[in-house]
């Protein structure tokens, strides 16, 4: 990628152009920075307000937001990965709203004046070699259900059963109920016991002749676990976290 394709920036942009640059950057999973005179309001586990002043705001493609002043290495306000962002122009003010549902948190940054705005398509070779976070495994399966098998459709996460909450509950191509259990390390027979318990609990929950499939997703299983899976008619999909 050439520099002109990967970086877009504007100095002293009209407010509507700033909005357009930020919106395009957010939509394309770019890293977005905005510098200008703004106020910051946070509402969530606590509440805080920063009055008008020059700040540098960075939105990362993973949902992180950092608000920096000219001092210190820590941001004065921030949102963790996983937040969703919206940008709009309200009464000649560029408004960046970052929201998180659990726990409910909102960060509102309102620029009266934008001095600089930029978007960067970041390709970090290091990133490709890192393993994902715990939650990534579930997100990957939800984004690409065919990783489980063609025709698999996730219907819900954290579906409650008498034996506890199921990681992913869905249907196969033939409409059969499927319980998916996600593990991030090599597992043994006890993981088979866990899965069997959820399958039984769901069969009881649904109706007497319900035929529920159980699929264990893990990097690998022990030989004993593989045997027990087969004996119970449960299935295994190998997936690295």
């Amino acid at each position, binding site marked *: 990628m050439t520099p002109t394709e990967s970086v877009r920036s504007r100095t002293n942009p009209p407010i509507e152009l700033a909005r357009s640059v930020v919106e395009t950057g957010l939509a394309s999973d770019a890293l977005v920075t905005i510098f200008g005179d703004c106020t910051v309001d946070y509402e969530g*586990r606590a509440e805080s307000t920063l009055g008008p002043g020059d700040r540098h705001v960075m939105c990362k493609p993973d949902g992180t937001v950092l608000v920096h002043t000219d001092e210190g290495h820590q941001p004065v306000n921030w949102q*963790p*990965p*996983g937040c969703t962002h919206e940008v709009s122009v309200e009464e000649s003010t560029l408004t960046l709203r970052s929201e998180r549902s*659990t*726990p409910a948190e909102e960060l509102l940054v309102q620029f009266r004046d934008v001095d600089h705005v930029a978007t960067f398509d970041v390709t970090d070779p290091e990133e490709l070699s890192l393993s994902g976070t*715990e*939650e990534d495994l*579930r997100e990957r399966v939800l984004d690409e259900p065919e990783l489980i098998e063609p025709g698999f459709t996730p219907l819900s996460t954290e579906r409650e059963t*008498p*034996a*506890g*909450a*199921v*990681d992913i509950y869905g249907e196969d191509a033939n409409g059969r109920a499927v319980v998916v*259990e*996600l*593990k*991030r*390390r090599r597992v*043994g*027979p*006890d993981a*088979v*016991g*866990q899965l*069997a*318990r*959820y399958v*039984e*609990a769901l069969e*009881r929950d649904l109706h007497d002749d319900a035929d529920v499939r159980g699929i264990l997703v893990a990097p690998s299983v022990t030989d*004993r676990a593989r045997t*027990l899976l087969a*004996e*119970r008619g449960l299935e295994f999909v190998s997936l690295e976290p």
Partner: protein
Amino acid sequence: MAHRALVAYERPDGRYDIHASRWGGLDCRLADAISPVDPYAGDAVDPVPRVIARPFGDMLTMADPARHEALYRVSAEYVVDTYLPLWFGLAHYLGESLLGGGPGDRQSDGLVVAVDSPADAEAFREWFQAAKDTVAEAVVGGYLSRADAQAVLADAVSQRGTGREVFAPWSGRETNEY
């Protein structure tokens, strides 16, 4: 499902608020990630407590050894102790129901043992799974009764757990501290 864990945070009154974590049982590194500035280790622990103001023992009885893979106790000073629930259930080796349990099989039976690091947790888990596989083979082969197998496991855990806190929250056994 996943690698579930429970986390008990000590309150100023000495009781505990008990939270759940979906992945905290993976490798017990959650103990290192919990701190006063990040009590829930990012998103690792659900910030909404399951129950509040309970004695520590309630976390042990709330835990399901077939489902929870780690338990954490966070002191008011943010010293974090880690415990492994060890599940003695054998029904899945025997082709029996995992819900009602077979004759004499106590699905919720097991012990809880303290570990002092992620490496210690991994070693203890591997040892326990091997021990459980061995006694389960003996039960499947008809060489050992299920009750004897579970007693053998309890003895083995107690011996290997010498010097550690060991709890028996589900079976009605006395709580032991070795």
